[in-house]
């Protein structure tokens, strides 16, 4: 199978923790520019898969390639982030003691070493980028507030905004609508669809309404490998999927 048109290519990946196989011979291919939703019951290995892609966890075996030719198993978190993979955590993780604007400033694409940061002066271009992102995530009127004062849903958006500031090629978004109201969920689906226009995106989510809203190809994971793949209607009609969700 050719990797050249893929943004992410996982083949035969396995990893186990203390004998427990969290990921078991997982193969998953994401084309450039594609948005994919990943569903699956708790413990299906969704977050572990993201850990592997972002370099937090090393797979025991299998291939993980980014952008066709970069072997991700040879790089660590910071390197992988610099190559263009952004990750939003399951629990929204922002810098609570900084303002929204400072959060975005730290995420903004640019040199990542100490001395440029020490003598950094904000340029007009950077200010413009921050303004753009604030507009996209709709937090413009809160730019000078501490991130700690945001609601749960707003923190999720801020974190997505920080991903955008990084300007990655691939975004991994873990449960973006957990704890959101219906209105917020709707808005987040719109936001992600907007982002997917010029990025490749993987969204892990439990909320089926939200997944339906996204309207993209769905992969269902179970016990660390792919159980079913296709449109949401196809996947949710799959008997095995129904079985793992409803229990045997």
């Amino acid at each position, binding site marked *: 199978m050719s990797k050249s048109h893929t943004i992410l290519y996982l083949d035969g990946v396995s990893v186990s923790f203390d004998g427990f196989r969290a990921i078991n011979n997982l193969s998953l291919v994401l084309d450039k520019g594609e948005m994919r939703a990943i569903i699956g019951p708790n413990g299906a290995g969704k977050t572990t898969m993201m850990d592997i892609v*972002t370099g*937090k966890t090393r797979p025991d075996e299998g291939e993980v390639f980014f952008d066709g030719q970069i072997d991700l198993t040879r790089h660590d*978190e*910071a390197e992988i*982030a*610099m190559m263009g993979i*952004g*990750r939003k*955590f399951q629990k929204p*993780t*922002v*810098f*609570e*003691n*900084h*303002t929204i604007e*400072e959060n975005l*400033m*730290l*995420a903004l694409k640019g040199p*990542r*070493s*100490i001395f440029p*940061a*020490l*003598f*950094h002066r904000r340029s007009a271009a950077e200010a413009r980028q921050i303004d753009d992102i604030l507009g996209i995530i*709709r937090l413009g*009127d*809160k730019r*000078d*507030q*501490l991130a700690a*004062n*945001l*609601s749960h*849903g*707003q923190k999720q*958006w801020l974190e997505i905004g*920080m991903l955008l500031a*990084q300007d990655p090629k691939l975004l991994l978004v873990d449960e973006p609508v957990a704890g959101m*109201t219906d*209105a*917020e969920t709707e*808005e987040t689906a719109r936001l992600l669809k907007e982002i997917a226009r010029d990025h490749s995106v993987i969204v892990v989510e439990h909320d089926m309404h939200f997944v339906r809203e996204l309207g993209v190809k769905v992969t269902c994971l179970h016990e660390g490998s792919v159980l079913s793949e296709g449109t949401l209607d196809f996947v949710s009609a799959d008997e095995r999927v129904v079985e793992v969700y409803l229990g045997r």
Partner: protein
Amino acid sequence: MITGRFFAAGADRRIAITILILLAVAVIVPLLNLAVSPTSGFYVPSYIVALTGKYLCYALLALALDLVWGYCGILSLGHGAFFALGGYAMGMYLMRQIGARGVYGNPILPDFMVFLNYKELPWFWTGFDHFWFAGLMVLAIPGLLAFVFGWFAFRSRVTGVYLSIITQAMTYALLLAFFRNDMGFGGNNGLTDFKDILGFNVQADATRSALFAASAVTLALAVFVTWAIVGSKYGKLLMAVRDAESRTRFLGWRAENVKLFAFTVSAVMAGIAGALYVPQVGIINPGEFEPSNSIEVVIWAAVGGRGTIVGPIIGALLVNAGKSWFTGVLPEFWLFALGGLFVAVTLLLPKGIVGMWDSWRGNAKALRAASLAEEAGIDPVVPPPPQIVRSAATRPGDWSSSSPEPQPAA
């Protein structure tokens, strides 16, 4: 948020005031000691000059610790080691200045080496007869140790209590090493009996005043440098690593390098503090590596308020003034008092004196704003802690209506 900016301005003003006070003290205290007659009410006795000079060195050490603990969450229990190393570098210079005036009258070897039958000066003492070389070593030795130590510790992602324990082990290992006579640093007696610094008698009032002034000016400079670091983008990053290290990694920052830089800068500051301390107290011995010394520094920073620049300075000055007073009145109870103070601060003033003052001022300001708003006939909405009310708005952009800021009456 307007209040946010106002507080920021307030914090900057506080730094400016602190620097001005330190510079003023650097001029006034020596003047009152040297130029005023001892019978005058304004006369500052020499022992006070020496004592407060010592406190200023402690304050610099506390500030150094605060840079890593308060701003980066690295609780170092071994900062006394960097202080002592800086002190030893200065002590070696002062030993070489004694020349032939020692008890044994040996022009090359310090007394303890003659006593221990050294035939020649150990290689690592070469160069220490030059002040510039010793000054360089004051910066380089603690900085290098911190760099190497931090390089390994942060790269292996040792954090939290484990890091604290290995910093403690580091200072303890150095304590044991410096106690040995054949290390070539004077064993348990350390280095003492100093005569001259840069050709001036270390015992003379004028020299002591000059050392005091140097300590105050250095502390002022350190306050400025720390303020500049903390206010830069790197400083924001430092706090970001403290609050959410994994987030910084996934944004592409190397958290270990961020920590390493702060740790090294902090160690250099601690080394400078030690170098200023030694000529003022006239001795440096392995006791300075004592782990309890490093823990005391943590208490100073905690009492004053970690994560603030002025806090650790206030903490170091207050606790040490208390120590001087207490050990005079009830010497056997000092350690109990210190322990009790730490417990009390942890339980009652988790943000220290300065942090407490800030939140008290913040509340007072909020209450005043609220009562003003009430007079104007607006619902009193108290800014800190702002509660974001989840509105039923359909679009998140409309949430500004639930802003905690009091809105002007229409």
